[in-house]
């Protein structure tokens, strides 16, 4: 079936009983979340109305499926609907109707029918050790499936921390050799959407952007969509609030944390059930990773906008950041010094070194004083001694 005869997102939403008002509300909200100017909302609407849905192959590798779980629990009523309808999810291990050989045929068919036109969404990553045998789908290693499917994809979206940076299964010592998608696929546009799990609104935003503008959003150093960061400098007006809502990698959790005022004031929780914890003080000293973590969770929250870790009194563990599992312990402010033999905090290492140095200097002083007392000089060519003898 050629692309242009496929129904558009709007067609499908109408078929599912979504009225036009709700549809426009969704388009506006998503445009705002993306940091788009209000003037660009019609463009989003037009894209949704006219463009055929993007064919998407959604692969599941080594992962826990929490990305999909998060996906279907978005706060905006039709977001989940939109995502599942907006894209033509032709292959998804957990959501498709087809099974067995039929399912695999489906994947092959899309690859053949839309070469260079389908989106590959990857949830989870691929183990590489022992030929990739630690994750197989339909008798094929996931590593092979991933590389084969990626070859003809228009773009690859790495959903979640597993696909973007490895997450749990790539944590030291990484027994299965699990590696994130961008290390396994080359010469392909890859969008990383790390977070464990990614927030539904963020996922919708990325797909809406791809559909509307037919190109990749601007990415930061870690390949995460940075969503028009240049606008922030100029946008000092009311749009700033829209922008803040959408800049899911541009601002740290810390910078928009509702507990930030306690941080600046110097008021910190010292123990889990102390007075500060009851008063909702900053969780910095409990190991909160907010200051190093770029994510939208403090704005969008999870599970239909219910909460996010800090909101529930738990420090952020930095799940959208690379190697967050190896940056432990989670409840320690700074990670340990990873030099073999000294698994210790930076302060302990520093104090030991400083003490050794001070003891060394002290020992030299003592030996000098002892030598002076016994009337010997500390080596030849002594200026003071020469001077004394001449006087």
């Amino acid at each position, binding site marked *: 079936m050629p692309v242009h005869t496929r129904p558009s997102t709007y067609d499908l939403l109408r078929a599912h009983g979504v009225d036009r008002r709700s549809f426009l509300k969704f388009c506006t909200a998503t445009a705002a979340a993306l940091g788009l100017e209000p003037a660009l909302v019609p463009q989003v609407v037009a894209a949704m109305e006219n463009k055929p849905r993007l064919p998407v192959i959604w692969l599941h590798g080594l992962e826990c499926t929490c990305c999909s779980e998060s996906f279907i629990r978005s706060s905006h009523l039709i977001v989940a609907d939109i995502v599942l309808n907006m894209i033509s999810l032709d292959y998804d291990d957990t959501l498709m109707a087809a099974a067995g050989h039929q399912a695999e045929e489906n994947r092959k068919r899309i690859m053949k029918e839309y070469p260079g036109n389908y989106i590959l969404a990857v949830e989870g990553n691929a183990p590489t050790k022992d030929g990739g045998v630690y994750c197989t789908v339909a008798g094929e290693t996931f590593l092979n499936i991933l590389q084969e499917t990626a070859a003809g994809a228009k773009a690859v979206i790495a959903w979640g921390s597993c696909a973007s940076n490895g997450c749990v299964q790539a944590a030291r010592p990484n027994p299965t050799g699990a590696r994130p998608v961008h290390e396994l696929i080359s010469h392909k546009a890859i969008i990383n959407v790390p977070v464990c799990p990614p927030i539904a609104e963020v996922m919708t935003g990325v797909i809406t952007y791809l559909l509307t503008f037919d190109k990749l959003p601007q990415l*930061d*150093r*870690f390949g995460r969509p*940075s969503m028009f*960061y240049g606008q922030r400098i100029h946008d000092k007006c009311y749009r700033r609030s829209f922008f803040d809502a959408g800049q899911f*990698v*541009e*601002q*740290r959790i810390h*910078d928009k944390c509702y507990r930030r*005022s*306690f*941080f*600046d*004031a*110097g*008021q*910190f929780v*010292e123990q889990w059930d102390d007075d*500060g914890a009851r008063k909702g003080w900053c969780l*910095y*000293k409990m190991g909160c*990773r907010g*200051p*190093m*973590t*770029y994510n939208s969770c403090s704005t969008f929250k999870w599970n239909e906008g219910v909460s996010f870790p800090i909101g529930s009194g738990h420090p952020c563990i*930095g799940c959208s*950041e*690379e*190697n*967050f599992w190896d*940056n432990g312990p989670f409840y320690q402010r*700074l*990670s*340990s*010094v990873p030099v073999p033999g000294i698994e210790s905090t*930076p*302060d302990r*290492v*520093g*104090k030991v*070194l*400083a003490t050794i*140095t*001070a003891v060394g*200097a002290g020992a*030299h*002083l003592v030996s*000098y004083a002892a030598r002076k007392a016994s009337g010997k000089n*500390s*080596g*030849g*060519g*002594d*200026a*003071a001694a020469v*001077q004394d003898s*001449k*006087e």
Partner: protein
Amino acid sequence: MATSLRTLRFDPGEIRYGRRYVWEFPIRLSHWLTVAAVIMLFWTGLYISWPQLAPSGEPWQHFVMGYVRMIHFISGYVLLISFLIRSYWFWVGNNYARSGFPFVWKASWWADLKAQALKYLKLHRGNVHLGHNAMGGLAYTIFVIGLGWFMILTGLALYSESNPGGFWSTLVGWLIPLFGGSMQLRMWHHTVAWSFVVFAVIHIYVVMFDSGHYNNGLISSIVSGFKFWEEGDLDNDRWVS
């Protein structure tokens, strides 16, 4: 020194002692700016990593962490400026301004390093240089220039986190992925900060010992810029010129 000169008997025309302007003003300025900045940076850094003060009351009444971070950032800029002054003076200053640099491509540098190392191994004081000797300069290069720039650059990278895509982020933000993320960079920034304590202990002890034991006015030279020399000392600095 003047007193001892008067008591010395030497032939007219034969100058055996003297005073020379070694550390020019920008060098001394940079030294003391660095001292001030590092002291401020270290204690504010300790506070930022593990805040000890716990003011009670409402958060709007306090701004402790906010001020401490502000001091840390301002001191960081001071350190950066101090290093830039010093780097600039490396090119335009006198020969002593260049004496601390490891000229590994020069045979004379290796000769001085060897001579100094052999004397130290024999627990000898070594040759007196008015500038830095090759070995001392190497230690300064690693401890102060190397680790100093490490602290400045990693610090700026962490500072840039509040404004991704901004000036510092573009310039040094690449350090964050290089170190495997912000947590790792923070950990190294903090650990390496302690090397300044180690350096300060050695540095202060050595200059006090040298100045006290040999009565050579070493400490005052970083205030006045003048150093005293004895016959033969100036020859030891020839390698740098």
